[in-house]
C-alpha cells in the first residue's frame, strides 16, 4: 500500500514536472535554504501579502546580467538591493508617483549645506549614518563585496537613494521588509523613522496635536489592515501622516507623491509657496473636510499662513540680510563655511527653531509653534545673532540693525516702555502691526 502511494505521488509529480516552469525551480531553491539560514526574514515574508500572491525571493531579487549589482548566487543571478524599478514591475503607479515626488530627490544632498556640514564638521561616518540613512546614499558598486555593493552604501534604505539602475528611492524606507505590511506603513511610526528631532520634529508635533492624541487613544479602531483605507469610510477616529499626505478620500485617489497636498515649503530659511500651491492646498482641504467643516479648514490655513509670514518677515529675512552683509563685507574671520560662531547661530535659527515653529503651526502643535519654535527664534535673534553681528563693529551691519530696531514696528518694542506696550496690546494697536500677515493674497 505504501509503495503504491509513493508511486502515485511520483506519478503526480511527473505530471507536474512536465508543466513546471524553470522559475518555480529557482524560486523553490531560494526558499529551501533561506527558510533556514534567514529564518526571521523568511517568516516575515511568509506572513506577507507577497506570500499570499506567491511573490517569492527570486521575483524581487532576480537580476538581469546587465544589472551592475547582479551576482551569481547558488546558480541564480540575483541582486541584493531591490529598487523602485523592481517594485514598479507590479506596483507601476506607485513607483511612478514616488519617482516624481519630493521624497525621490532626498538623495541629492551632496551639494547641500547639511551634507557639507556632516562631511567637514563631523566626518564621513556621520554623513553615511546620520544623513544618508534617511536621505538615501548614492549606491556604489564594489566588485570585491559578496553582493557587489559597497559597504558604504549597503545597508541603506534612504527614501531618496540613488540606485545603480537609475531609479531613485527605496520603497522599504516606509514599507519595511520583508512583511511589507500596509498597517505598518500607515502608522505614524513609519514616517517618524526620519521626521523627528530638532530640525524637523513632525513626529513630536503630531504627538502633541489632537490628531496624534486621538490616534494613540484609538489605534485599535484604525482598521489599519484593511485593503481599502478610505478616511470616513474604513476608519474615522483619527488621521495618521499617511491619511493627510497620501491616503485616499471619497473624492481623491491615494498618492505616493507626498507633496501633492503641501502648499508651503517649510524647509528653507524663508518659506515659499510651492508651485501650484492652491491646487495642492485644495487637495489637503479635501482631506480635512472629511472630519471638519470648510470654515474650520479655511481657518486653519488663515492662522497657519500668518505664522509662516510672520516668521519670514520678522526674523528670517532680517537674519538673512544681516548674514549677507557680514559676508559681503568680509567680516567673517575664518574662510570656511561654519567655522564662525555667527554662522551656527543663523543656521539653528532657521534650520532648527525656525522650522519647528512652522511645522508646529502646520500640524496644530502649539508648543512647537511657540516655546520650541518662535520663542527660541526670537531669543536667538535678539540675544545671539544681533550681538554677534554688532561685535564686528562694521557701520553697514550696525546701520542695518539700528534701522531695523528703530524703523520696523515689529522690532521697535525693544526701545519702548513695557507699560506702553501692554497698553498697545489692550488697545489692539500692537495687533495692527501684524494685520498684513492675515491678508489673503
Amino acid at each position, binding site marked *: 500500500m505504501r509503495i503504491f502511494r*509513493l508511486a502515485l505521488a511520483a506519478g503526480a509529480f511527473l505530471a507536474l514536472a512536465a508543466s513546471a516552469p524553470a522559475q518555480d525551480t529557482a524560486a523553490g531553491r531560494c526558499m*529551501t535554504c533561506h527558510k533556514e539560514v534567514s529564518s526571521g526574514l523568511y517568516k516575515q515574508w511568509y506572513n506577507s501579502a507577497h506570500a499570499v500572491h506567491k511573490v517569492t525571493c527570486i521575483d524581487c531579487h532576480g537580476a538581469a546580467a546587465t544589472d551592475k549589482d547582479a551576482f551569481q548566487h547558488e546558480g541564480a543571478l540575483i541582486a541584493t538591493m531591490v529598487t523602485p524599478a523592481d517594485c514598479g514591475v507590479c506596483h507601476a503607479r506607485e513607483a511612478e508617483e514616488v519617482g516624481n515626488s519630493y521624497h525621490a530627490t532626498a538623495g541629492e544632498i551632496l551639494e547641500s549645506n547639511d551634507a557639507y556640514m556632516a562631511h567637514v564638521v563631523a566626518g564621513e561616518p556621520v554623513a553615511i549614518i546620520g544623513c544618508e540613512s534617511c536621505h538615501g546614499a548614492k549606491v556604489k558598486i564594489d566588485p570585491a563585496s559578496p553582493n557587489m555593493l559597497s559597504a558604504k552604501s549597503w545597508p541603506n534604505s534612504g527614501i531618496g537613494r540613488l540606485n545603480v539602475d537609475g531609479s531613485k528611492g527605496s520603497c522599504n524606507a516606509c514599507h519595511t521588509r520583508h512583511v511589507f505590511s500596509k498597517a505598518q506603513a500607515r502608522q505614524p511610526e513609519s514616517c517618524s523613522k526620519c521626521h523627528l528631532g530638532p530640525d524637523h520634529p513632525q513626529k513630536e508635533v503630531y504627538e502633541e496635536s489632537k490628531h496624534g492624541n486621538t490616534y494613540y487613544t484609538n489605534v485599535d479602531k484604525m482598521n489599519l489592515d484593511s485593503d481599502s483605507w478610505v478616511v470616513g469610510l474604513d476608519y474615522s477616529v483619527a488621521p495618521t501622516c499617511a491619511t493627510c499626505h497620501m491616503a485616499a478620500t471619497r473624492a481623491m485617489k491615494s498618492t505616493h507623491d507626498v507633496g501633492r497636498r503641501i502648499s508651503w515649503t517649510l524647509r528653507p530659511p524663508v518659506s515659499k509657496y510651492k508651485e501650484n500651491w492652491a491646487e495642492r492646498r485644495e487637495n489637503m482641504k479635501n482631506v480635512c473636510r472629511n472630519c471638519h467643516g470648510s470654515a474650520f479648514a479655511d481657518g486653519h490655513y488663515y492662522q497657519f499662513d500668518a505664522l509662516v509670514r510672520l516668521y519670514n518677515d520678522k526674523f528670517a529675512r532680517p537674519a538673512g540680510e544681516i548674514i549677507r552683509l557680514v559676508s559681503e563685507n568680509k567680516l567673517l574671520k575664518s574662510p570656511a563655511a561654519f567655522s564662525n560662531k555667527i554662522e551656527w547661530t543663523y543656521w539653528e535659527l532657521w534650520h532648527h527653531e525656525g522650522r519647528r515653529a512652522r511645522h508646529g503651526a502646520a500640524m496644530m502643535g502649539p508648543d512647537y509653534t511657540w516655546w520650541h519654535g518662535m520663542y527660541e527664534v526670537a531669543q536667538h535673534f535678539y540675544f545671539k545673532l544681533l550681538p554677534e553681528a554688532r561685535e564686528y563693529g562694521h557701520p553697514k551691519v550696525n546701520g542695518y540693525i539700528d534701522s531695523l530696531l528703530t524703523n520696523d514696528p515689529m522690532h521697535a518694542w525693544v526701545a519702548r516702555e513695557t507699560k506702553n506696550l501692554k497698553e498697545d496690546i489692550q488697545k489692539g494697536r500692537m495687533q495692527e502691526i501684524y494685520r498684513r500677515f492675515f491678508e489673503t493674497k
Partner: protein
Amino acid sequence: MLVKYINFIRGVAISRIGLIGVVLTTSSFVTFVLLEAARLLGLLTNTYVGLITYMVFPALFILGLVLIPIGWRRRKKATGLTTRQLLERKFADPDVRAGFFGSRVFLTIGVFTVINILFMMGASSRMLMFMDTPIFCGTACHSVMNPEWVTYRDSPHARVRCVDCHVGEGVEALVDSKLNGLWQIISVTFDLLERPIPTPVRQLRPARETCEKCHWPEKFYGQRLKTLVRYGRDETSTPWYTTLGLKINAGPGTEGGGIHWHVAAANEVRYASVDDKREQMLWVEVRQSDSSFKRYNNRRLTGIETDHDLIRTLDCIDCHNRATHIYEAPDHAIDDRLARGRLPRTLPYGKERALRALTGGYTDSAAAMDGIANSVSEYYRRNYPDRVDAADDDITSMIRTLKAVYNRNIHHGMKITWNCYRSQIGHVGDGGCFRCHNAYLVDAAGNSISADCTLCHSILAYEADKPFEYILPPDTTDPEYRMHHYLQREFFESVGQ
C-alpha cells in the same frame, strides 16, 4: 622437596630487604597464577580484575626479584665478607660444593631464573594484551578518562576498541603509545593537564588507516533518509520533523558525487585553518584533473600567514570529529530521549521542564542530582496538584532519565559543561559544512563554494508536523507551493540518478 625449597628461600633471603623481595615475588607469582586460572576456568568474569592481575602482580613480582640481589649487596657491604663466604654460611656444605655443572645452589638459581623469565614473558604479553582493552584505557586513569569512557560506551563505536582508533599497528606505534602513556601518567600525577582536555587532533592516527578499515568511500552510495525529531516547548511538547535525504555517495570521479566526494579516491581537498580547532579556514584547495590545486581564499581572514603545521588533507575526522566521544546539546539530548521513549511525553510542558531542569547551572554533580529532582517534582506539584499523584511514575522516570543525561554529558571534575566539544557534522550555526561552504571562501574569480541545501541533501520535511511533508502533493494555495513543488521534484530526480 618443600623443605629443600624453603631452605633455599631462607638462604636467598639474606637480609630483611631480601626477605621482602622473596615474599613479594613468591606471593604475587602464586596469586597471579591463581587469578589467571580462575579466569580461564570462568570463575572470574569481572573485567576490572585485569587491572590487578595484569598490571599490579607482574609489577610486584619484578620488584621482588630486584630486591633480592639488593639484599645480598647490602649484606656484603655490612659484613665485609665475600659472596662465597656468605654462601657457605647460609647453605649446607653439599649445596655449595662445586659440581660438574656448578653447585646445587647455582643450579637451583638457574632453574628458577628460567621459570621467572618464562613467567615474565607470559605475564608481560598478557599485560600488553590487557592494555589494549578498552577497560584499561577507560578506567586505569579513572578521574581523567571517565568522560571519554562514558561517552564511548554510549556511542556507535562502543564495540570498537580504543586502541583500534587511537594506536596504530606495529612496534613503532606501540612504543609511541607507551611513551605517550608514560607522559600521561606524569601529567596526571603532577596535575599538568588542561581541563577540559583539548581534543587530541594531532595525536590521532590517520583516519584513512583507521576509519576506512570499516567505512571505505566506495561503500557510500545513494541517499540515506534521516528524520530529525524536535519537540516544541509548548504544553504537549509537539513533535516536528526535518527529514533529509542525505546524498552520501562518493561519486564516480572528480565530478558529481555527494558528501563523501571529499574522500573519494579521485579527489583531494586540503585546507589551512587558523588554529587546531579547525573551525575557521584560511583557505581550501581542491585538486583539479591536471593535478594542480584550485584555491579558495577566505576574504574575511586576510593578512594571516599560513602556518604549515595547520595545513591538512581533509579526511573523515574533519567532519566526523565526534564520531565516538559524542557530547550532546541539552535540547537535542532531551529530544532524543523523548523520541526513544525514555522521557514521558504525557507530562504537560515536558520538554520545557526537562530543559530547564537539565540546564540549571549546577556547580557540582550532587547539586545537579538534587536540582533536577527538585525542579521537576516541584514544578508539577505546584502547577498540577490534581494530576501529580497519577503522574508519579512519569515524574520519577523523567527525573531518572534527566539525571542519566546529565551524568553522561557533564563532568565537573574535568570542567566539561554543555557544548564544550563542538561537533562538526552537519551544520549548526556557521560550523560543520559551512566552515568551507560559505560566501567568504572565494576563488580567484570571486566564486564561492556552493552552500546550496540540495547539494548535500534532499529535503522531505523541514520543521514540519509531517515527517514526509514534501512527498505529499503540494497545495496550490500554500505560500510555499513553489518550494514544495521544487523539493518534491528534486528528491525524485536525485534518487533516480
